């Protein structure tokens, strides 16, 4: 039994290959964060070492150990807080790949975040990746395959894990993680098809709470004058120094919000994300032009890009605050 939810094509492909003994020695799983890449990779590692009948059974000692990352022959290489995966890690793979499996049948190396491989590391991987010793399998996990060098890409079989359909996530949340239907409905939409995020959000109450806070401050800001906006920008930029991810999350929240406005304005309200604030969205949509909304989304994207390129965060955010489109009818208060 494969424990991955969704991704039927990829699972079927792996299952077929596993049963017929034609698994490739190198796979690359491509997909957005939290979509289930690691789960699938561990599942494959389980299948390769499982002692049960219906591989991967998930119950046998070996499967349990793989799931707990305690299996001696299944190795996960990741960033570990560094900013790239260095050549030493990969040399280590090259060495231990030559050893016979210790407790299972196959050695499995999972490289999590393969786009972070340094160029030396990626090149160092090439020979092992092309012709590893028998019973060695490598699984590369990446969110963006364009960041892999072509020589690595061409040595692997690529499986693309796309975001899951929203109803599937909704169902899974209710059935397997005991979420309430409303909660599931909202989280499924917020997750943008990434089950992992939805699950962690359903278990961790602080995530939805923080989102609600951010949304209300967003709404507040659009109603306020420049002084408050600049104050907000400076708050956000001081946060940026400590935690880049947090600012990014706030901005993506904004993008989501304005995208909803765009969809409502465009007459396509079935696909909005923030369904818990539907009425606010409708009334907000009334007061903006489509041009303004579209323009602001572009500005948001530019801001995120600029932040990624180490622009002065405070300046960038202040400019963004100036970009907030004016409401029709001159609702914006002058200060």
């Amino acid at each position, binding site marked *: 039994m494969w424990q991955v939810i969704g991704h039927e094509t990829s699972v079927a492909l792996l299952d077929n290959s596993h049963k017929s003994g034609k698994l490739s020695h190198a796979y690359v799983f491509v997909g*957005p964060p939290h979509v289930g890449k690691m789960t699938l990779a561990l599942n494959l590692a389980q299948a390769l070492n499982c002692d049960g009948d219906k591989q991967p059974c998930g119950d046998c000692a070996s499967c349990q150990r793989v799931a707990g990352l305690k299996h001696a022959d299944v190795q996960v290489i990741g960033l570990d807080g560094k900013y790239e995966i260095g050549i030493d890690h990969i040399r280590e793979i090259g060495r231990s790949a030559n050893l016979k499996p210790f407790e299972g049948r196959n050695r499995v190396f999972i490289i999590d975040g393969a786009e972070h491989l340094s160029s030396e590391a990626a*090149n160092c991987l090439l020979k092992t990746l092309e012709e590893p010793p028998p019973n060695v399998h490598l699984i590369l996990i990446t969110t963006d395959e364009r960041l892999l060098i072509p020589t690595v890409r061409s040595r692997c079989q690529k499986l693309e894990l796309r975001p899951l359909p929203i109803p599937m996530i909704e169902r899974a949340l209710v059935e397997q993680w005991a979420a309430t239907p409303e909660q599931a409905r909202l989280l499924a939409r917020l997750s943008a098809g990434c089950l992992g995020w939805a699950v962690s959000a359903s278990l961790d109450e602080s995530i939805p709470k923080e989102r609600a806070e951010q949304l209300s401050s967003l709404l507040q800001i659009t109603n306020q004058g420049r002084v408050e906006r600049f104050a907000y920008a400076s708050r956000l930029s001081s946060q940026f120094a400590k935690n880049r991810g947090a600012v990014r999350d706030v901005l993506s929240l904004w993008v989501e919000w304005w995208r909803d406005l765009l969809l409502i304005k465009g007459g396509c309200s079935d696909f909005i994300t923030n369904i818990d604030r539907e009425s606010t969205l409708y009334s907000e949509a009334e007061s903006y032009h489509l041009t303004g909304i579209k323009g602001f989304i572009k500005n948001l994207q530019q801001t995120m890009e600029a932040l990624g390129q180490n622009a002065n965060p405070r300046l960038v955010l202040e400019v963004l605050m100036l970009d907030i489109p004016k409401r029709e009818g001159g609702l914006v208060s002058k200060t």
Partner: protein
Amino acid sequence: MAKKQAKVEKVEKTEKDERRGAQVYYRKWRPQSLAEVVGQEHVTQTLLNALKMGRVAHAYLFCGPRGTGKTSTGRILAKAVNCLESGEGEPCNACILCQATTEGNAIDTMEIDAASNRGIDEIRELRERIRFAPSIARNKVYIIDEVHMLTEPAANALLKTLEEPPPHVLFVLATTEPHKVPLTILSRCQRFDFRRIPQAAMVSRLAHICESEGINIEDSSLKLIARSATGSMRDAENLLEQLVAYYGYQIDLPQVQAMMGITGDVRALELAKHVVDMDIAAGLQTINSVTQDGLDLKQFNRELVEYLRGLLLLKAGAAAAIDLPEETLSEMRSTAERAPMAQLSKAARLFREVELQFDGFSPLPLELAFVECAMSEGKPITPAIPATPQKIEKTDKKPAPPVQSTRTEQEPTITPALTEEKPVKATKPQKAAEEPATTPEPTEEKQTTPGKLGETDIEHFRNRWREVVDATRGMGSAGNLDALLRSACEPLSVENDTLILGFYYDFHKEKIEDPKYRHMVEAKVSEVFGQPYKIRCVLTERKAKTRGHLVEAALEMGAKIIDEEDE
């Protein structure tokens, strides 16, 4: 005794075969002789000749894109120079030495991964060992793969050995990135550039593999695989194997398309239609339903661009260049008729750019591009077909830019969701058109001479307006006529031989209307565009687009614009 040995060998052989059977195709079907190397005749033929004449160089550099046969050729060369059977020409692949090399355990064929052993110490070690004679074979062959990853000291340490190795040594260096290899190394090797494998050669090789593997697949599917492999055999073999893993040994075209994410989805064509009709609601609906179905958005976008390109070609009258079935073509023809050329080219360009923006899985870039296409910027769109004589008559009576007529034609197709946008859009051109009626132009002459139709395209003027502005530099009483033209007005439209300039402020308009300046500008315009033109000045609203958001904000805070400059 000999019999027993033979038996042992046989057992070993079956084990090896078994292992090979489980290997992925690109290892299993690695070419084992020069003849099998696909699409690199210029390399294989040269090597073959060199082998036959016994004039093998001591150092080769193979470079080329991934999956074109560099490492494979290196191994074949290693076998060929040591083969017990022939020793000249192709390896026999039957003798012990050939087999050992194939297995990768020949003592005298050293395959070094320069990316892992990239330091100077490893190269020094190699130099130490290289002096010893080969243990069994005639030659020692060093295959140094990924040679571009050698560190600089390591590469330099190799130089002397590479230039004058002992007589029994043959170097084969292989890399995908020859530009990273030091020139001093390049100049010491015979360099062979491997090319991307042509589609036909790849198809025939794939067909050969399929036949031996018992895979039933059509030629058209193989062509599709070959096309998406972009000249890399390994990519193609990988795809083929993935297909076999998923669909078994009977593969047909739709399955191949599905695997490649080619949707063949009617929705791509639908979306193209929505772009033409400017139907925002329906378009967003389409994009989101595609996302919901988990289709590959990148591929979907590619197909959309392909359709838009088709529409463009149809519009331009180059239908022969489109490679699409007849039904689709006839459907596209009716769409193409409705759409102005400018809109189609804009749409094609915008969606083409989407490709770069995809972070992967969010439909937002597509949505933005679509909204941008479907929403006109309030910029007057000129009809793709130059105004017909009939229209000129119409404009004579009521001097409205031809823009108006196209606008009203398209309006009924705009959905209710857009209605609030409409007044804004509609008023702008109108304002521009009505202005001359309210402020009579004493100097204005009704145009009677039919202008050159090809020259009436306003885009043409917009594009070259800059030249006019630059040409007026230093003219005028204060020598700043160019600054005025640059920042105070823009070409709005053109009627026969009259260029209509839109000014943002009455003050500037009056200034240029002064005959002294008007003649100057007219002279320059005529000079730049090569035929006499008159100008007419109207008032117009400045488009928000011409100003940055920062300027807007500054204006709101009470700033005044003193001067404006183009970037």
